[in-house]
């Protein structure tokens, strides 16, 4: 391939600018390969995060030509001709170059009330594939935090962070709510402290998810329905409570043996 100019943002919390590097991509190379070659030659101190280089760990998130992408899964030959800009995720404070301070996400993770199952019967829990599949979709999340990065509620309004969990944690709450065994009720918390109501379902999170999780349709919208129902409709709330109990005991073989 012909030479490409990589415009990489360099700097720290006090400011920075683009630095350009020109090099020729080899067949099949991804953006992260070029960043690595720049590190190995011209700029050994160019900061970026990466681990698996296989789209499985979610470390190398950045904005490529302005869009959140995993650097390890973005092939150079998939990008339009011309210079390629690589910038750090915008919604998080800069540490250095392409590395941002993503601790907001770890603060949110620590607020999630833990999974709470009934005691395990002899031989293990019984659950059915169709019941676990809904949660499994959300557990594919690799925590690249690109959905958090792209979400307008925090991307454009830093002051929303203390009371807004963001799409990554809405799928975590949805997963727990839909878990066939979980007995913890987090609905008031999700509505009152996690800011679910701020989401106006523009689906930007779904569009950037590298795992193709249908964040808005399969997690946020059902979660909004549950939480709103629970709050405004005491009959529906009671009905759900009873159905949940029934479902929980049905999976507990010590109470009611599974078929």
């Amino acid at each position, binding site marked *: 391939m012909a030479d490409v100019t990589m415009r990489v943002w360099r700097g720290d919390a006090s400011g920075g600018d683009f630095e350009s590097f020109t090099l020729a991509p080899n067949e*099949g190379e991804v953006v992260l390969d070029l960043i690595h070659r720049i590190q190995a030659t011209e700029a050994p101190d160019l900061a970026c995060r990466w681990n*698996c280089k296989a*789209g499985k760990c979610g470390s190398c998130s950045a904005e490529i030509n302005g869009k959140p992408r995993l650097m390890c899964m973005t092939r150079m030959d998939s990008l339009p001709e011309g210079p390629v800009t690589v910038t750090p995720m915008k919604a998080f404070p800069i540490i250095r170059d392409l590395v941002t301070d993503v601790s907001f996400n*770890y603060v949110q993770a620590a607020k999630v009330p833990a999974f709470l199952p009934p005691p395990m019967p002899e031989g293990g829990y019984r659950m059915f594939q169709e019941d676990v599949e809904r949660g499994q979709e959300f*557990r594919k999340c690799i*925590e690249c935090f690109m959905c958090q990065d792209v979400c307008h509620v925090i991307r454009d309004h830093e002051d929303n962070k203390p009371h807004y969990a963001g799409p990554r944690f809405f799928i975590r709450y949805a997963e727990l709510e839909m878990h066939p065994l979980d007995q913890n009720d987090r609905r008031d918390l999700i509505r009152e402290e996690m800011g679910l109501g701020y989401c106006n379902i523009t689906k930007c999170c779904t569009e950037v998810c590298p795992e193709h999780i249908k964040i808005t349709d399969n997690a946020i919208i059902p979660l909004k329905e549950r939480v709103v129902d629970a709050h405004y409709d005491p009959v529906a709330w009671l009905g759900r409570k009873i159905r949940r109990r029934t479902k929980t005991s049905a999976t507990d073989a010590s109470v009611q043996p599974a078929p």
Partner: protein
Amino acid sequence: MVDSSYEHHEYDVVIIGAGGAGLRAAIEAKRRGMNVALVTKSLLGKAHTVMAEGGIAAAMGNVQSEDNWMVHFRDTMRGGKYLNNYRMAELHAKESPDRVHELEQWGALFDRTKDGKILQRDFGGHRYARLAHVGDRTGLELIRTLQQKVVSMGVDVFMECKILKLVHDDQGRIAGCVGYWRASGEFVTFQAKAIILATGGIGKSWKFTSNSWESTGDGHAMALWAGAKLIDMECVQFHPTGMVWPLSVRGLLVTEGVRGDGGVLRNSLGERFMFNYVAPMFRDETADSEEEADKWYDDHDAGRRPPELLPRDEVARAINTEVKAGRGTPHGGVYLDIATRRTPEFIRRRLPSMYHQFMELAGVDITREAMEIGPTCHYMMGGVQVDADSETTVVPGLFAAGEVAGGMHGANRLGGNSLSDLVVFGRRAGLGAADYVEAGHAAATFNQREVDAAIEEALAPLERASGENPYDIQRDLQEMMQTNVGIIRNAAELETATKLLDEFTERVKRVSVKGGRAYNPGWNLATDLPSMISVSKCVTLGATMRKESRGGHTREDFPNPDPELAKVNMAQSSPGGNWDSPVEVVAAALLEMPADLKALLEETK
């Protein structure tokens, strides 16, 4: 000049490494009321455990009720070519079902059987369908479950913190460690009554590897420098199926689940060549025709197992031989074909991340075309010698679990036995460390001289005005190890490697790094190089001493196993205690196996 104005923390137990073993150890130590710190070079949840795909081995018998711990024990020992610490293999086989069930109590969602139990899949070397799994992303499920549990328990987690060296007290007991924050480059010390090493592997010393940048053997090296013994360092697993093309992803793992679910290996002539490579010890249980092998997939009682599901060392050597004989693919691998054997729907459902990986990185649709694959450096069987029950090393206060510990897998690890190793021995290390702390013999002083020396050494590359680029040294080391200490070894190449490693040692002493200390990957790499050199020397020395072929260690000048060498581990130590100190090796007798366990190995059916 050494700046002594750095952060200092005090804990009962400090765990270095936050993959499966470190996380599981943290849970157990915390449950025992210990004050626990978990320290990781990366962010939490990014450790190499996420790369595990196929599953976690546990003899639950959900798919084939004949399975039990005794068969799992036997399979593990046979897979390890009997070099295993038998007691570790025994504990692992007995305890892994409980550890898997425990993961479900913490929120994991495994795939299910029709009657709602945890589904288990077939894998190489396992007699029965034994691997609990979630599609082909089981490692992610394991790490996320453990991570969420650790966070909910309130364990203190120190992220992006690189530990440089362990610190002793004045009597040689472990008293803590010293490292730096990657974000700021500032130093930090941890005073600890016990340290658990859970740092994973060493694969980054090879050019074609499935391992991430983190696998630089830090724990192996720090244990060696601190006075512990390393065993079986010559036993490096080359996984048979890594991607070979495009070059930028060469080495990236292709799960063994592809073969477990029906995929077969073919050479450039289209031959299903694995039938030609069935070693005598596996002949009784392996199919001898394609017809018999294919029947087995539908009904495990209708035929014997396909030879594609032999242990990894056997399959990797066979692929290597086919390529050397000129029957390889255009890019120097062989074909892994599931497209002609299973429906596109089946492939996408069972192997979603493989589908995704080949589609996006290689432009190959695995539901329509064969994959090109070849061996890739994948796993370190060898490691820190520990007591099987408590994971104690010979250094008081030092524990090790997971890939950094040696013994469990002998000369070759079976697929699926790694994730179970992490949770079985991670838990036991947490218990072992808590017992040690409670017994009250822990260190009370902290050797400041060791801290100062480690900091001085770490700063040296920043202070040299000119010298070697750390990236050049890393690249040359990877090329050298791939060429001379790869999948097939011989005396001449090992001798070359030994000489060159001395040259690399000198080069590392001349490393010069540009820029400051704050998030500087060049400097971070410079501080990883001493461990990479240390472990490379140990692998080379062990491989030189083991004049036979066994499991992951293959010598073309000694192609057969030697029954005498089946009785010993190559045990290495470094009394000098520095990264450039000489390493000594002795042949140390294996533990004597009790008669009842020996009898299990002799049963063929």
